[in-house]
């Protein structure tokens, strides 16, 4: 129902459309609080503590088992008995409740896995008990992070209150130069606008440059908007995204009625349905701010310890010694990222005194890197590999840092203490810069190593 005094033909942002759809309202105003029903509710290793909260409600069954997705990814394989017990509790809960989508140790990081499995579709609302849930904006979905108690409430009631956020629009023009990636674009934006530059807001990307970006590159950029404080981020999905999803839905036919492909269906039919469910912002919608970035002006960036918005061009850094290089995470652990690392490192050796840890974002990425021969080449360079998952990103295991050590990382956060001791320092950069720095033993521009 349209409220009195609200023009029905008003132009709307993506956030307004997505949250209106999820709350069953015809239209919602910016600032309005809605009771939204997520299409997907995501949790990971934190599923067991959430289940503990949920049990306080005295229900026998969660009300949305088919909408829940659970991955084990944050500390896998279990590094301690405490973690192993936590995993065991998650498995028991998933079996007891008949959770539709469950992914075991080694399948990969929740955001990557739910993308690869085509569980999140354009126009969906996905709420996750993980702060990088805005990631799913690369598929044209509205993804936002929530707390553990909130996830328990979603399991119990199927819904959660959300405020319809203000939106900012970032128009991308031009083309990325050699050795420049969307990680550098993200760090440039965060450096310019600040770690709270999109606080509480929905970030909509548009502009002619998007069509020229690979899908892996789009995901990396949207993912990083969490580091600008965004509630969610969005990129209009194009035919390439529809094909990616359709292919994956067709290899998993009949998984969830009405949300995918039926056995024997033609790809074209699936694509038509994906197109139909896509939400696009209206021309003339209301934006709190608009920015334009010419991608050809972006240079390889580094975020210095301990803030993501403390950025500098890699060439501006004075020689910074590197103890550990880390490649992985939901930001930059995909195939394209491993390809960039391979391009820089194959046939070269790690610098003496520098070690390198690579953790693919998913088993699909790992298998593809294996079959392309990249893993063997990188191992010959001296890199070690971890089980697909989050790896040392949040300091659980698989490459944590000692006091005084310096890490250059393809991750998204360089907060003090995040990867181990609080006396360690984390620099963030693109996979190519991380790889070049591993070869040089200090932070360098990739062309210094390759050319």
């Amino acid at each position, binding site marked *: 129902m349209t409220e009195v005094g609200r023009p029905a033909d008003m132009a709307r942002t993506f956030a307004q459309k997505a949250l209106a759809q999820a709350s069953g309202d015809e239209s919602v105003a910016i600032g309005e609080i809605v009771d939204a029903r997520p299409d997907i509710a995501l949790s990971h290793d934190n599923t067991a503590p959430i289940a503990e909260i949920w049990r306080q409600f005295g229900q026998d069954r969660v009300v949305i088992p088919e909408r829940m997705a659970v991955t084990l990814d944050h500390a896998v394989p279990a590094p301690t008995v405490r*973690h192993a017990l936590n995993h065991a509790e998650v498995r028991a809960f998933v079996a007891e409740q008949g959770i539709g989508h469950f992914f075991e140790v080694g399948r990969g990081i929740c955001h990557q896995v739910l993308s690869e499995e085509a569980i999140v579709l354009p126009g969906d609302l996905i709420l996750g008990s993980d702060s990088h849930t805005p990631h799913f904006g690369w598929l044209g979905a509205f993804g936002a992070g929530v707390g553990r108690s909130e996830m328990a409430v979603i399991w119990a009631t199927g819904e959660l209150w959300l405020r319809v956020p203000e939106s900012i629009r970032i128009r991308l023009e031009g083309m990325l130069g050699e050795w420049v990636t969307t990680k550098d674009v993200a760090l440039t934006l965060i450096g310019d606008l600040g770690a709270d530059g999109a606080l509480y807001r929905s970030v909509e990307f548009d502009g002619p440059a998007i069509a020229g970006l690979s899908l892996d590159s789009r995901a990396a950029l949207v993912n990083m908007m969490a580091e600008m*404080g965004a509630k969610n981020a969005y990129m209009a999905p194009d035919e390439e995204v529809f094909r990616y999803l359709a292919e994956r839905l067709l290899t998993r036919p009949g998984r969830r009625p009405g949300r995918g492909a039926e056995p024997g269906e033609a790809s074209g039919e699936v694509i038509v349905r994906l197109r139909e469910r896509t939400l696009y912002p209206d021309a003339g919608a209301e934006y709190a701010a608009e920015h334009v970035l010419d991608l050809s002006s972006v240079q390889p960036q580094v975020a210095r310890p301990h803030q993501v918005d403390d950025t500098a061009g890699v060439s501006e850094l004075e020689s910074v010694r590197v103890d550990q290089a880390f490649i992985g995470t939901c930001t930059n652990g995909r195939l394209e990222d491993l390809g960039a690392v391979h391009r820089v490192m194959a046939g070269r050796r790690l610098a003496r005194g520098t070690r390198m840890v690579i953790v693919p974002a998913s088993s699909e990425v790992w298998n593809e890197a294996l079959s392309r021969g990249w893993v063997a080449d990188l191992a010959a360079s001296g890199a070690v590999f971890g089980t697909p998952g989050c790896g040392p990103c949040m300091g659980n295991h698989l490459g944590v840092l000692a006091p005084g050590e310096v890490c250059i990382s393809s991750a998204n956060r360089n907060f003090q203490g995040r990867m181990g001791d609080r006396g360690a320092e984390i620099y963030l950069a693109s996979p190519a810069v991380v790889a070049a720095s591993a070869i040089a033993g200090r932070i360098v521009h990739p062309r210094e190593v390759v050319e």
Partner: protein
Amino acid sequence: MNDPVDVAERFRGRVFRYGDHVNTDVIFPGRYTYTKSRPEDVAPHALEDLDPTFVERVRPGDVIVAGWNWGCGSSREQAAVCLRYSGVGAVVARSFGRIFYRNALNNGLLAIVCPGAVDALEEGAEVEIDLEASAIRCGEAAYGFSPFSTAVRSMIAAGGLIEQTKRRLAAG
């Protein structure tokens, strides 16, 4: 479970001052997130990587006063829970990370946006927070903030999101 801070309409405590962009990793380190969940287990780690002496000094009702974007970063709810159960009654800041803000209010930790108080209040100052009047008092001075919405106030009055949801489910 014993509640160190009663979310009363008024409460008082001393000010602990911190800076901008204090993230959830330094409020509650990630290395504990899949092993420590109960309030009494997480409280001793509050602000461990920012101010290791904080937990020895904090007393029930104390108030954290900080700059921009307090609680940015991870969604971990322990960042709000560890502060509340270490005794903190409220965090007053110029702005908050959005998930921290929700987690705080959902757990009965007041998250108050009040730049005037952030400008004025010094470390160790004695303050009183008056939710009724939406003001922070310090001696003769008072700093107003936008009142919480009725929805948020009723959630706080119900004892937080979980208690409120229990009542809602019981009511059918």
